């Protein structure tokens, strides 16, 4: 995407985002889910794509946000909307704090070792939540009812997630244009060299993961309310669904790019919605086939593939605009 086309594309996507819930009102729940998935892919890519640290544990932050939000709504005694906002912010805060704590320990591990260390995070959290009475143990928690006629809830969540996704996109576009973005790329390309040049790689890695965790906490915080129930393994720490999907979507679209995760999430969600109903009982198999297909045919993702296919169009730019 070249410099002058970028704002146009953003405007077009924004227009679609605003209009969509009214163009196809029957699909508001799916639209809300679409934007939530976009955010998950975007945030996964901060460490996974830009920094080269593949995390399989980001679902932890999502689940923590979900639980924290519903617990705040249950115990603080605010009205629905103030309670939800406070819950989301508290959830995001706890998720970010966890990222700082865990990150400063396991982000010292390089490459595959880090990836393997993160594998256990979501599973462990699911086990803990499933055995903790304060969090409803195995039966989970029920968020308060949405205080408006049915149907409006999905409209609300569709716009909420669209708003967050748009904000995250703009924030990341700005972030990747700073020298911090370059520092993350430098760590991805050659961490030893980055250290030899005097960069504080440890601090940057933890910061990047914390940013992802904060946003994922927000996303999870609203998701409990949208889905209507919080289950330790099926919705909150859902490693086999959301946890895998966020990795998959970023890789499918093209990791390490600004638009890749967005594109990947859109394609993944539409494919999933179109096919899943016809593949009853075979969804997991289909997902497996998709993963294999992506790894074999699009190891660089769709945008990465396009960039190799038509290199001339992408000359002289990193993620869009002219940056040094």
């Amino acid at each position: 995407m070249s410099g002058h086309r970028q704002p146009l594309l953003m405007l077009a996507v924004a227009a679609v985002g605003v209009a969509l819930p009214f163009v196809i009102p029957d699909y508001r729940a799916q639209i809300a889910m679409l934007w939530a998935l976009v955010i998950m892919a975007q945030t996964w890519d901060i460490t996974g794509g830009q920094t080269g640290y593949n995390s399989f544990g980001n679902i932890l932050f999502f689940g923590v946000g979900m639980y924290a939000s519903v617990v705040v709504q249950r115990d603080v005694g605010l009205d629905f909307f103030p309670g939800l906002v406070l819950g989301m912010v508290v959830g995001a805060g706890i998720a970010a704090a966890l990222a700082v704590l865990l990150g400063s320990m396991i982000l010292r591990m390089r490459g595959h070792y880090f990836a393997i260390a993160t594998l256990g995070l979501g599973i462990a959290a699911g086990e803990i939540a499933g055995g903790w009475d304060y969090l409803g143990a195995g039966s989970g928690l029920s968020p308060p009812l949405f205080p408006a006629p049915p149907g409006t809830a999905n409209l609300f969540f569709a716009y909420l997630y669209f708003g967050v996704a748009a904000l995250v996109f703009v924030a990341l576009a700005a972030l990747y244009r700073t020298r911090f973005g370059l520092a993350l790329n430098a760590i991805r390309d050659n961490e030893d060299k980055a250290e030899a040049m005097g960069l504080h790689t440890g601090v940057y890695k933890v910061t990047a993961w914390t940013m992802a965790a904060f946003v994922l906490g927000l996303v999870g915080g609203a998701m409990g309310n949208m889905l209507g129930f919080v289950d330790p393994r099926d919705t909150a720490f859902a490693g086999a669904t959301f946890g895998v999907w966020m990795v998959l979507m970023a890789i499918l679209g093209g990791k390490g790019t600004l638009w890749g995760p967005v594109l990947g999430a859109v394609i993944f969600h539409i494919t999933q919605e179109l096919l899943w109903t016809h593949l009853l009982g075979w969804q997991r198999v289909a997902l497996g086939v998709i993963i294999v297909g992506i790894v074999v045919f699009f190891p660089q993702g769709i945008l990465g593939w396009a960039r190799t296919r038509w290199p001339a169009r992408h000359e002289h730019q990193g993620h869009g605009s002219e940056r040094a």
Partner: protein
Amino acid sequence: MSAQLTIEGATKRFGGITANEDISLEVPEGRIVGLIGPNGSGKSTLFNSVVGYHPVDGGSIRFEGREITRLRTAEIARLGLIRTFQQTHVFVQMTGLQNMAISDAEAGHGLFQLMRPVSAETRERAEALLAFCGLYGKRHLMAGELSFGQRKLLELAMALMVRPRMLLLDEPTAGINPTLINGVIERLQRANREFGVTLFVIEHNMRVIMSLAEHIHCLAHGRLLASGPPEALRNDRRVIDAYLGAR
């Protein structure tokens, strides 16, 4: 002339192998000093110890009067002591200009200093240094697309971007074609002269090191074998034996 880098009794062991044994030498400020020796004589190990990549098992290392024996790589780099690698280390999926921009130590490495776009000053200095290294025309190419020799030059440009006090260069001309070698020598001499950077150079190519260095240290089997000006070392029986394998 005062010593900028002082190594005293440096010893480094890997298991049962002693890679460096009781090495003491000095690198005076503003000079070009060479470090030679046959393969496996411990030159790169000594460099790694100096820049804190692995700590020494014994002895001490001081840089500009400051004890750096126990400091970590990044901390040492921030003091202005920068190394380049034998195999080139550049950021391959970033453009030449981006490689330079992230190497700008003056723009700062603090988290908040990083949270802004590349400044015009950084960009200008990056472009000037890329031009100095003959890479201006390739500044928008991904570093991974450059030839080996060009990557070595980019690595030199990145090191100069830090405004280093001293550069530790590990075989700056290895694997480069003979025509480009002269270009590298000339640029190293200019960097030393114009930017006042002290150079401490590992080199296998005798022609290169003899014309570049004012003073040379020779290692063999992990020990300091001989030191002196190039002419003296060229005729030193022990050095010749070490290289030819007589012992």
